[in-house]
């Protein structure tokens, strides 16, 4: 995604993966942003990450005013997400001030204001030269103070004061029933409002983020899925699908010579996406493994997502047909990532795919089978996800290889996956088992191959312990564009 300069409106990058794309640069610089959501939606972590990234990536010290958790609790809670608060504090880049309001020990009589809070905040900001401030969550004050009239006018003053101070602030708020926040904080903080949502759809938890408001700036209005894992928060921007990726004229092998010869140029274009469909037991994974081998032999890094078999199982099963993946695993040319699709939501999978791809920088990515993902999302969602995935792979010029399970009877499920992927794939190969009197005949057919002539016949093939043997290829090639 291109970085667009917004000259008129200075922004502070949040450093939260994906969020800066969605907000086109970050939060409004020197102004407060409201982040609201129900309990457990990740508000506190959001704030912490905003500060931690500010320190590590942009050298902007930060102050965290916590109304709910002690310094120790906070520090422990975020440690598992790879953030070392104690170190940041020791380096004098971060200050955490826990404001504890114990209602039982407080009496109110006569007039007062919240100058004490202002003084603490000001002191914390000045002592480390903070550019970023997080107040988490200021609504706790409503539980500790009876005089809400004072509190409201003081909050108004606080937000004005923060602006004057020129710090970029994140104020968290608890989601209310009628309003965005329980105490209507959105009334005071109106420059930028972010809503975090956490819901469970069909037993799978999904987190979503929406920019409710961003005064003076364009922003995405969609709900963006986000993820909290050991790397903290990452938001998944739904990239605009511009078809402007570089294309390659390079030809790569599919890993099987006889298979390569089905194509006019004895192989497939590098950076293309390939789909192999077939019912159960039609050797989709074997073809995927050949493709993997071919990539590894070219000394290109390969990332294999296995949604049905564990790494060990895959390696063992492929050995039975004469494909040895082990040496490439050892040489770290090949990485197998296996997980059950139902373990997490679709976005989670996509984010993991994105992250691992960013991490390993592979030249080849295998997803086996992509149809498993259908079980965790609706058709529309799966299609969206695949569009995004394929788009991302294409932009990076990565060779993609997907397998998809289809059903013999041509059920709805078949249509779902195939419809979703087939139009996106550059090459589509269908595998079939033909039932005969004494067994079955395996058949392979190239359904389409963009930009390349190819054999259009159904080619019989067999699998032995030496691997796949395609029967001699007929020389009749009737290609189509």
């Amino acid at each position: 995604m291109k970085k667009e300069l917004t000259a008129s409106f200075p922004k502070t990058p949040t450093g939260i993966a994906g969020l800066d794309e969605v907000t086109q640069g970050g939060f409004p610089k020197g102004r407060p942003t409201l982040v609201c959501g129900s309990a457990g939606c990740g508000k506190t972590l959001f704030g912490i990450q905003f500060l931690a990234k500010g320190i590590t990536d942009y050298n902007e010290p930060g102050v965290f005013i916590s109304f709910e958790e002690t310094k120790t609790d906070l520090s422990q809670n975020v440690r598992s997400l790879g953030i070392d608060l104690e170190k940041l504090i020791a380096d004098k880049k971060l200050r955490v001030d826990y404001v504890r309001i114990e209602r039982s020990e407080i009496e109110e009589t006569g007039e007062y204001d919240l100058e004490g809070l202002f003084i603490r905040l000001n002191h914390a900001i000045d002592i480390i030269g903070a550019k970023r401030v997080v107040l988490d969550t200021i609504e706790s004050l409503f539980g500790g103070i009876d005089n809400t009239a004072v509190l409201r006018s003081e909050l108004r003053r606080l937000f004005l004061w923060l602006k004057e101070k020129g710090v970029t602030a994140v104020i968290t708020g608890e989601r209310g029933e009628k309003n965005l926040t329980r105490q209507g904080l959105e009334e005071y903080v109106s420059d930028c409002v972010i809503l975090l949502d956490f819901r469970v759809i069909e037993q799978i938890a999904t987190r979503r983020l929406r920019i409710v408001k961003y005064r003076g700036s364009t922003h995405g209005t969609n709900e963006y899925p986000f993820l909290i894992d050991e790397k903290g928060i990452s938001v998944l921007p739904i990239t605009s699908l511009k078809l402007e990726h570089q294309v390659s004229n390079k030809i790569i092998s599919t890993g099987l010579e006889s298979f390569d010869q089905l194509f006019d140029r004895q192989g497939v274009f590098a950076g293309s996406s390939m789909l192999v469909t077939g019912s159960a037991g039609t050797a989709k994974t074997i073809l995927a493994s050949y493709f993997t081998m071919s990539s590894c032999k070219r000394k290109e890094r390969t990332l294999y997502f296995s949604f049905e078999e564990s790494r060990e199982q895959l390696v063992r099963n492929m050995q039975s047909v004469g494909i040895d993946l082990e040496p490439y695993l050892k040489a770290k040319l090949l990485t197998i990532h296996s997980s059950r699709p139902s373990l997490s939501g679709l976005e989670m999978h996509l984010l993991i795919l994105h992250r691992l791809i960013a991490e390993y920088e592979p030249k080849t990515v295998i997803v086996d089978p992509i149809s498993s993902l259908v079980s965790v999302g609706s058709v529309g969602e799966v299609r969206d996800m695949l569009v995004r995935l394929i788009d991302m792979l294409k932009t990076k010029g990565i060779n993609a290889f997907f397998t998809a399970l289809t059903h013999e009877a041509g059920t709805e499920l078949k249509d779902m996956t195939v419809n979703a992927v087939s139009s996106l794939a550059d090459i589509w190969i269908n595998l079939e088992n033909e039932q005969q009197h004494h067994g079955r005949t395996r058949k392979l057919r190239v359904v389409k191959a963009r930009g390349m002539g190819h054999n259009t016949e159904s080619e019989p093939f067999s699998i032995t312990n030496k691997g796949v043997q395609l029967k001699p290829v007929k020389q009749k090639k009737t290609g189509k564009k």
Partner: protein
Amino acid sequence: MVKEKELKYELRLYIAGQTLKSVTALQNIHKYCKEHLDGKYSIEVIDLLKNPQLAEGDQIFAIPTLVRKVPEPIRKIIGDLSNEEKVLVGLNIRKLADVK
């Protein structure tokens, strides 16, 4: 049981500059203590504008705040202390009249 004469009140008043609220609070607490504590008290005044770092220790967020450090447990009264009844109850000070 603690005997009456051994009981000494240690109070701390947090203010932020000489604002009307702060000055009123200070006058009020001096007056109540004189009336009801018969010399068995000390009042320390902390101006957070001069010593902002002291706010964190006693968890001060509102100004003015009166903190009863001794006897324990800690009690806090926020506001200009204009309601004598509330202050005395809040600090758990028995009125001299009641003692007699």
